[in-house]
């Protein structure tokens, strides 16, 4: 078992699945010879050849749509959107097509495609290389949206996504790619899609979040521990459909809940998490549900102070947790 980075876990998962199943292939812009602009498909072209690691024309709707056609035929395509921000031209294919193929055909056809995309800010990517786009897809039954926070989860969940019988959007935090490292087993394992994971056990306040913000919460929790405040952290991992049982359990455990997303606040994933808690945990709560999120501006600016102001960080989480603990 070696210590590897978040992006290496992406490559490892794809490589293992391509070795195990000849129906698995990769398509996208710059995924072949170059190995991806972030190097998330590095070495795959050399190992599997241009037939299975396909450099496509620059046209996102075709990347998704061609993948969907291949999936309906019986292949297991992994389509890469170079940045989550550039998924917009493919939305018709993803929402009108992939999400509805099984339902509209009364289970005659299926669409087992994985669409991967790097999302998230804090990398000086400005408005169009920093966005979180999950909320756009998070009221589309038929889709699953996975957003892992750690290399271990990346490998297990990406392998599960590739084996899944339905379309899965797999969003990878681009700042986590090389920042987050941990031990990841070399062996073949999958993690269940649709299940949240407790990343830290605590008794005083609960954080429910996903993606890079899980790490901000872990850092803040560490600081609070020295002051005797015990933080419970639930990592959603799958943001659609949500693991309602785990959310209710985590909220009820401490009665004080901080929900965090890097996305704009209104209409975000945590808005739905909040609604689940409100519906189910009224008598378990000891404080109003608190939300920490990006501001409701179109996207994060390039200017470093403005970007910093937009982003969630460990200090903001720490402050919110102290306020909540003191309520």
């Amino acid at each position, binding site marked *: 078992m070696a210590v590897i980075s978040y992006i290496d876990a992406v490559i490892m998962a794809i490589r293992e699945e391509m070795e195990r199943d000849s129906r698995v292939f990769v398509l996208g812009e710059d995924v072949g010879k170059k190995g991806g602009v972030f190097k998330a498909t590095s070495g795959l072209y050399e190992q599997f050849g241009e037939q299975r690691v396909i450099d496509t024309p620059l046209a996102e709707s075709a990347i998704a749509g061609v993948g969907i056609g291949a999936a309906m035929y019986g292949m297991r395509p992994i389509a890469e959107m170079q940045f989550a921000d550039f998924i917009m031209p493919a939305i018709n294919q993803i929402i009108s097509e992939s999400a509805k193929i099984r339902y509209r055909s009364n*289970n005659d056809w299926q669409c087992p495609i994985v669409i991967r995309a790097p999302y998230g800010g804090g990398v000086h990517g400005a408005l169009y290389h920093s966005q979180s786009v999950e909320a756009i897809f998070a009221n589309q039954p038929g889709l699953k949206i996975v957003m892992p926070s750690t290399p271990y989860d990346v490998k297990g969940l990406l392998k599960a996504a590739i084996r899944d019988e339905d379309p899965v959007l797999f969003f990878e935090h681009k700042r986590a790619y090389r920042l987050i490292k941990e031990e990841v087993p070399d062996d073949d394992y999958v993690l269940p899609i649709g299940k949240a994971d407790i990343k830290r056990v605590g008794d005083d306040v609960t954080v429910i979040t996903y993606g890079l913000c899980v790490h901000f919460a872990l850092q803040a929790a560490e600081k609070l521990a020295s002051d005797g405040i015990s933080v419970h952290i639930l990592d959603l991992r799958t943001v659609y459909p949500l693991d309602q049982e785990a959310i209710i359990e985590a909220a009820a455990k401490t009665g004080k809940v901080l929900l965090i997303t890097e996305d704009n606040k209104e209409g975000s994933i945590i808005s739905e998490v909040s609604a689940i808690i409100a519906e189910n945990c009224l008598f378990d709560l000891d404080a109003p549900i608190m939300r920490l999120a990006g501001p409701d501006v179109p996207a994060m600016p390039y200017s470093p102070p403005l970007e910093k102001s937009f982003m969630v960080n460990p200090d903001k989480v720490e402050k919110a947790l102290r306020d909540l603990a003191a309520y």
Partner: protein
Amino acid sequence: MVENRHLQVGLRDEDVLEMYKVMLLARRIDERMWLLNRSGKIPFVVSCQGQEASQVGAAFALNREKDYVLPYYRDLGVVLAFGMTAKDLMLSSFAKAEDPNSGGRQMPGHFGQKKNRIVTGSSPVTTQVPHAVGIALAAKMEGKDIVSFVTFGEGSSNQGDFHEGANFAGVHKLPVILMCENNQYAISIPIEKQLACGKVSDRAIGYGMPGVTVDGNDPIEVYKAVKEAADRGRRGEGPSLIEAVSYRLTPHSSDDDDSQYRSADEVSEAKKIDSIITFAAYLKATSVMDDEMEKQINEEIMKVVNEATDYAEEAPFAKEDTLSKYVYAEK
């Protein structure tokens, strides 16, 4: 004496007779759907009328045992030729549980039937073009001798998915046949307000594939063009674009009033070259069919349509508790 053109393109007498039967069946099913709609029995119809020759001529040029078709909403003729039955189509019109397209979930005209390789479609137009490209790509990866055949209207040839899909197929030399059924109207908008170029087939050059325009009222000419495209595809020479020009004889759908945007005279002129009439005349002129056979064929088809209508009308709807089924794979 009319020249025998079908033997020249490799179609036997029994083949063209079969083509005529499928064209006529499509027409009669379509006409029945309008009657059912106007009598309040089914909510919606979208027609194939005027395009049967393009659809059936094309389908007969494919390998109906292994090729894939991605029809658009008017393609009654294509899906009938690929194995869907009158009963299946009536079940769809009545939105009944047994409808193989969708179990009554989708509007009529949203075809799909996996066992016959008729790929499920949606309502946003032209999304099926990249799917056809993906199917051809997958078949090529598996070394299968398969072509995918995808249709769309001339208005749809403006959609990004047409251009993105055509380019992808061209770059990767995939065995895709893109056939535009140019019926000259996108609901109310005539072709001159849809295209800046003269013909839809002019668009092929941008994607490195041949583009041809053929008479969509002539099933033999369409057959010939699609056969050539299928042969090219199977030889590994890549995709083709075919534009089959015909005329939409009905309003866009049962909810449209075409008198708002075109003259009755224009429609009557088009009806004079309706392929159901002209192809029957050709078959008689070449002694493939006589009056007695024509009468018999008509009677047989009406019997099939009547039986299908009765069956579908009596068939049960899907139960309400199935509403949430098949959102995701069920274990």
